[in-house]
């Protein structure tokens, strides 16, 4: 703040920069190393303002798209995905009383103008383009082909002039054109002066696009930073990494080496910085050097005090992937895949600015010539920036011809004839034109997007309201089995198919780490990884151990694995070296030909064979989890080994209460975690369980089942009022969402009495997973439409094993809804794999504490996933990772496009191409009052709701009609039902057969004859 007041030419104070860097860091992507990819809101730093404002601000700051292109929405309008009623409703909301404002002398209203601008749109073209159209095309001699018939008839009729000429379209159109040319002849093109950017590079590029300093600095910067952050790709590692990014880079860059012309001064500068870093390291204050360097470089670049914040932010955003990764290493060193490094964002900025200044000075010389070289650099640069700011191009509004062209189009769409236009006063013409310009592209796209979302929300809420009343719970007999799934949208189909296959099965949804936050080390793992939401740092470690009588077998297998691993490592590393490489490559080809051919030609068989060979020894080893803590001592990483009985009881109670399963237990309660296995997929972890921090939830399910089966735990629970019947057995399992496979844990410990029930459950699962595969396959363009469930299963298995497959699965691409409530109410609803389903029983939650802790997890996680997909879909280049095809794994922390690009964060295009970008519709089975009570202690969630990052609807426990939160009015409004007809089908398969796109909800009525949609 004091900076603003101070003399703009005063030297920069290093300490004033800390706040600027911290503020800029919030704009960077929050994605950590790609091996634990968690979908997060790319605009997390903007969550303190309303969504609509945030996307537009971010769009300006990062040159991103705020919404889809207008043409996409118009195409949605054409196929009925957006309905005219949506446009009307959105416009009425947006304009309020202004809707009826008269225009064109009362002939039309403002809302009419905006409606045609949204639904039909005008061609905005430059004067040159319009002139070309006039001479080469017939746009001014024909009416637009997309006019309403009534409108067209009116215009054509009006074209029958007083001279009794021919009634033709041509006549009407060209007459109108002349009227428009006359009407707009008076005005002058508007000139809009934009504020020039503060960052020198942006200024230079705006004036001379062919001189881009970033094109000079980025390749060496990327090499240095990626060498610093490397987690194990390079054989030869950068030295001094433990001393921090700035020190390590300065040590490297101060050595003798090849230098480009622009980089001549760099070596001397880095030598000096390296020396300062060394003395600072002696004094143990490494932090200060970076800020000193930043301050010096900002001064040397002649950046005025008021511009510093912008320069810092836009300098970091220019390589936002790498800057964000450095920031992640600084914030969460524990997430580094292999090597923890003291990376700091200030160091990165310091390095970047040293490079930037050299490149800016070099470019400046080319811009102004070497004449002014006798002056001191900052003075010379300051003069140059001043000159460039003067030359910063202003944006011109449309010129005379193009204004006439716009008016011509608008007049047609509104049905204004030449006579009408000629009768308007100048003032009315100006007002009409202004209504076009004031309704700019961002506004139009925002409204179209709102209409797009409105249609979706209406469809879902209508379906919820139209559901038949739930059956009385008392009338249902004891279930055969209860299956707890992850809330993941991808589990929705398997759940539904399982319920359809066997009506005696009840399902639940819970966050997929099943309330077991742990560090887990499996039998084959070399270190423990956290299996819990990314915001939680687990305090307990669980290890999978071989049973005592399998120990020798395990050790023998370990030895052989290690040997094979070492050979593979030697061969791969060796193939890249000089001497061994010569040998390996000249004889290894014959061996490599086998996997090359088999992996490409028959991927599924190859992987089955490989799994058979590798898994052969593994399957014979029986293992157990070391769950019970027997010692008080902590492990070296600070976590405790295992859990005490009381801790286990708390975990079991927590989950069962969360999902509302505290009475009427079935004999068999199954927990099904999930993960995803695919090849050739750097984003593999993005398809794993988000609730497990991008890990696989199988071990959590297994651990939970063991805890819940523990008699000691049960007696503790019973003493506390949660009685689990003695004949109820818990079983853990895991679902692979890519290959649709299901595996089970510890089934050998199942009591004999439960074998039949378990077998019948497994049979149901086997049938359901094939149907699940079939339902997934309908989305894949490369799979034929009428595929049978069995073939579909083979197809998804092949995808998981195929090196050439860039869409092994579609991940959360279809996600759009989250329903927190009793499954009983939505049990027969076809939700098209689009809904997170969280079980919650409002009747068992009198003080809303359960809802509060549920929303604390569900709100940020589900909205994060939804926003990551939505924004990646809206702008695949800025928020998404772009197409996968040229991706190049770097440092084992991320992917680049090709050989030297920014680190690409977000989701790849192939993962989001079928996504419908809508904000998450969060439906909570509760009343608005209770919701607010639950949300009050959660400022983060409340912010998401109030600022419209999710659309929240309350679905009252008694009564079918949901109430929707309106951000603008800041209160809940009853949902206006548009259609109370819900299509009914006998089986899910009848509803989705042969269809590729998204499907509306339908009611599954077993035994019901298939029926066409009634409406």
């Amino acid at each position, binding site marked *: 703040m004091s900076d603003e007041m101070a003399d703009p030419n005063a030297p920069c104070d290093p300490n004033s920069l800390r706040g600027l860097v911290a503020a800029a860091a919030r704009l960077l992507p929050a994605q950590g190393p790609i091996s634990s990819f968690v979908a997060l809101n790319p605009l997390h730093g903007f969550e303190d303002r309303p969504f609509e404002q945030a996307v537009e601000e971010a769009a300006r700051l990062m040159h991103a798209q705020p919404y889809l292109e207008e043409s996409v929405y118009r195409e949605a309008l054409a196929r009925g995905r957006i309905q005219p009623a949506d446009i009307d409703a959105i416009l009425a909301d947006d304009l309020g009383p202004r809707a009826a404002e008269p225009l064109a002398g009362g002939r039309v209203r403002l809302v009419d103008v905006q409606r045609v601008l949204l639904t039909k749109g005008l061609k905005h073209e430059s004067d040159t383009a319009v002139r070309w159209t006039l001479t080469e095309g017939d746009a001014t001699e024909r009416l637009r082909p997309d006019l309403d018939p009534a409108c067209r008839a009116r215009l054509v009729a009006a074209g029958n002039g007083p001279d009794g000429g021919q009634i033709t379209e041509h006549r009407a159109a060209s007459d109108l054109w002349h009227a428009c040319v006359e009407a707009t002849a008076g005005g002058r093109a508007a000139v809009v002066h934009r504020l020039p950017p503060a960052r020198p590079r942006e200024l230079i590029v705006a004036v001379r696009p062919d001189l881009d300093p970033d094109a000079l600095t980025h390749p060496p910067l990327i090499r240095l930073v990626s060498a610093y952050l490397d987690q194990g790709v390079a054989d030869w590692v950068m030295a001094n990494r433990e001393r921090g990014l700035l020190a390590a880079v300065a040590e490297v860059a101060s050595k003798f080496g090849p230098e480009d012309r622009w980089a001549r001064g760099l070596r001397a500068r880095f030598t000096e910085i390296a020396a300062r870093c060394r003395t600072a390291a002696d004094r143990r204050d490494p932090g200060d050097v970076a800020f000193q360097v930043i301050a010096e470089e900002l001064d040397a670049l002649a950046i005025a005090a008021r511009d510093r914040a912008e320069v810092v932010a836009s300098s970091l955003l220019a390589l936002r992937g790498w800057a964000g990764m450095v920031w992640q290493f600084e914030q969460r060193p524990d997430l580094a895949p292999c090597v923890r490094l003291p990376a700091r964002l200030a160091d990165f900025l310091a390095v970047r600015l040293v490079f930037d200044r050299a490149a800016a000075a070099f470019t400046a010389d080319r811009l102004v010539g070497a004449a002014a070289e006798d002056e001191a650099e900052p003075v010379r640069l300051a003069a140059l920036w001043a000159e460039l700011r003067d030359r910063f191009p202003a944006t011109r509004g449309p010129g005379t011809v193009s204004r006439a062209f716009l008016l011509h189009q608008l007049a047609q769409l509104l049905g204004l004839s030449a006579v009408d236009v000629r009768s308007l006063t100048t003032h009315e013409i100006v007002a009409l034109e202004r209504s076009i310009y004031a309704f700019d592209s961002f506004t139009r796209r925002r409204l179209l997007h709102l209409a797009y979302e409105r249609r979706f929300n209406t469809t879902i809420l209508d379906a919820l309201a139209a559901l038949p009343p739930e059956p009385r719970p008392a009338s249902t007999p004891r279930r055969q089995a209860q299956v707890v799934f992850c809330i993941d949208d991808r589990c929705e189909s398997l759940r539904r198919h399982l319920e359809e296959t066997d009506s005696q099965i009840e399902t639940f949804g819970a966050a997929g780490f099943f309330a077991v936050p742990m560090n887990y080390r499996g039998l084959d793992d070399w270190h423990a990884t956290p299996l819990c939401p990314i915001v939680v740092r687990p305090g307990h470690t669980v290890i999978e151990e071989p049973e005592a009588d399998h120990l020798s077998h395990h050790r023998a297998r370990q030895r052989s694995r290690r040997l094979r691993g070492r050979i593979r490592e030697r061969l791969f590393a060796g193939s890249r070296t000089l001497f061994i490489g010569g040998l390996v490559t000249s004889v290894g080809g014959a061996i490599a030909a086998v996997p090359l051919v088999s992996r490409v030609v028959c991927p599924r068989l190859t992987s089955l064979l490989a799994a058979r060979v590798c898994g052969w020894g593994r399957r014979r080893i029986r293992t157990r989890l070391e769950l019970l803590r027997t010692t008080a001592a902590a492990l070296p990483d600070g976590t405790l080994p295992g859990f005490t009985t009381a801790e286990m009881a708390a975990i079991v109670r927590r989950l069962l209460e969360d999902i509302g399963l505290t009475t009427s237990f079935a004999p068999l309660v199954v927990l099904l975690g999930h993960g995803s296995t695919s090849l050739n997929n750097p984003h593999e972890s993005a398809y794993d369980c988000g609730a497990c921090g991008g890990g696989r939830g199988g071990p959590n399910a297994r651990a939970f089942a063991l805890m819940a089966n523990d008699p000691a735990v049960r007696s503790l629970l019973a003493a506390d009022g949660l009685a689990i019947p003695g004949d109820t057995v818990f079983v853990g399992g895991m679902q692979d969402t890519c290959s649709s496979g299901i595996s089970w844990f510890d089934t050998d410990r199942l009591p004999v009495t439960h074998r039949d029930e378990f077998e019948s459950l497994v049979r149901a699962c086997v049938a359901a997973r094939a149907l699940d595969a079939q339902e997934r396959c309908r989305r894949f363009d490369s799979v034929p439409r009428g595929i049978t469930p069995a073939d579909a299963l083979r197809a998804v298995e092949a995808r998981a094993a195929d090196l050439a497959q860039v869409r092994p699965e579609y991940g959360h691409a279809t996600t759009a809804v989250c329903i927190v409530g009793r499954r009983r109410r939505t049990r027969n609803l076809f939700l098209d794999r689009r809904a997170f389903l969280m079980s919650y029983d409002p009747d068992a939650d009198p003080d809303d504490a359960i809802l509060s802790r549920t929303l604390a997890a569900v709100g940020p996680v589900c909205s994060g996933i939804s926003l990551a997909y939505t924004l990646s879909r809206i702008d695949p280049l800025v928020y998404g990772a772009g197409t996968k095809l040229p991706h190049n794994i770097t*440092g084992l922390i991320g992917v680049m496009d090709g050989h030297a690009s920014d680190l690409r964060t977000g989701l790849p295009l192939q993962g989001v191409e079928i996504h419908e970008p809508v904000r998450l519709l969060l439906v909570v089975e509760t009343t608005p009052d209770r919701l607010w009570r639950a949300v009050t202690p959660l400022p983060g969630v409340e912010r998401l709701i109030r600022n419209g990052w999710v659309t929240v609807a309350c679905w009252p426990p008694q009564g079918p009609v949901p109430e929707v939160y309106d951000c603008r009015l800041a209160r809940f409004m009853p949902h206006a039902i548009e259609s109370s007809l819900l299509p009914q089908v006998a089986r899910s398969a009848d509803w989705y057969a042969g269809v590729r796109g998204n499907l509306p909800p339908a009611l599954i009525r077993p035994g019901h004859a298939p029926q066409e949609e009634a409406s």
Partner: protein
Amino acid sequence: MISALASRHDLAAGLIVTQIAAPAATLLGLGLPALVGRAPSEQATTRAVAAGFGLAFVAALVSLAVGAARGFPVEVVHLGTLFSVGHHTATIELVADGLSIPYVCFSTGLCSLVNAFAGRYLHREPGFTRFFILLALFGFGMNLLVLAGSIDVLFAGWECVGISSTLLIGFFHERRTAVAAALRAFITYRICDMGLLAAGVVIHHAVGSGDFGRVFAGAWPAATCLVPAATAVPAALLLVFAALGKSAQVPFSGWLPRAMEGPTPSSAIFYGALSIHAGAYLLLRCGPLLDAAPAAGWLLVAIGLGTAIHAAVVGSVQTDLKGMLAYASMTQAGLILAEIGLGWRVVPLVHVISHAILRSLQILRSPSALHDRHELSAALGGPPGQGESPLVRLLPAGLQATLYRIALDRGFEDAWVGRFLVAPVVASLEAAAEFERRLVARLGGSQDVANEWHRDRGAA
């Protein structure tokens, strides 16, 4: 007896022509409809390419079986004469012998595999048809290069390989770096291709023909050179120069790591397997010339070993998978050229084929690196070790740090080639464009045109 011989020759010739004609037919079948804006469906496209390459592959296998049974006699197929002046002739000839037949089997086989891979990998990609047209062009060019019976035909194949390589590096032409990398490869190719063109002229001048049958005598690998020694030296040097560009040898290696901009399968087949070894093939084919010019052979050994050392050191500091594999390819390409320079023939051929198979598998698999690494760490019980190579460790610490810096900046030649070779060419082209702009402005008599041109460039 004679008629049997003739028919056997016809059969062999038919097989050889098929190996060229099948990819050519695919290229035309895909390219011509695409030119008029009628791109076939994805499935039809991959099937057409698979049919073309498959047919060529089967023909090559039959040729291989027949040839192997008969000890690889030299089969020359005369397709026509371009022109003939006095005792000067330029003919279109293909040759099948112990070098070209195994090589064409391997190259068409690899093309077929990559086609199968890319059909799934590029599904729904907007440039799908373009990719496969370029792949067909590459396959056609490669087979032409391999089966060429004269230096003129070889040059034609060489250029097809070069242009398809350039266009695939720039496949994602909406990205600036991809286009810049393609341009860099293109300029390097153009410069080095002059060597091949000049070598052709020299050879034509010396023996009055570019036919290998008249330049060399005997069957590969025991052929001898018929070019007089005085001409052999410049011709051999020019051929070595030509090979340096395609095989990414020092000082023309900078384009290779940058070439990893296209889709993964094209990177695999071009820079892991076939394109990078085109230089080696050229020198193997013209091996007798190198034998006749020992100086060129020794120069080749020096450059090859220099490149291998350079690439091994630079490669060891690369932190991206594809860059690392690019340098690994360069290392082996250097070794292979050195082997050729030593006068070996069969060893480098085996080395080329074996290396190409291994490396293309590694590049195709490179997006699985995280998955593989996870498995490997699990098997080893810890992350695989890192550390400078034992040779580097022998250097004093100060020198190690300097070498690291030089390696991170990809050696000196990269900066120098960019500065002294690429930049002047680009600058002269820009000057030409500027001249044209001024000329148009002068002729058009309007300053507006010039300004608008500048603005358009800015907008782009």
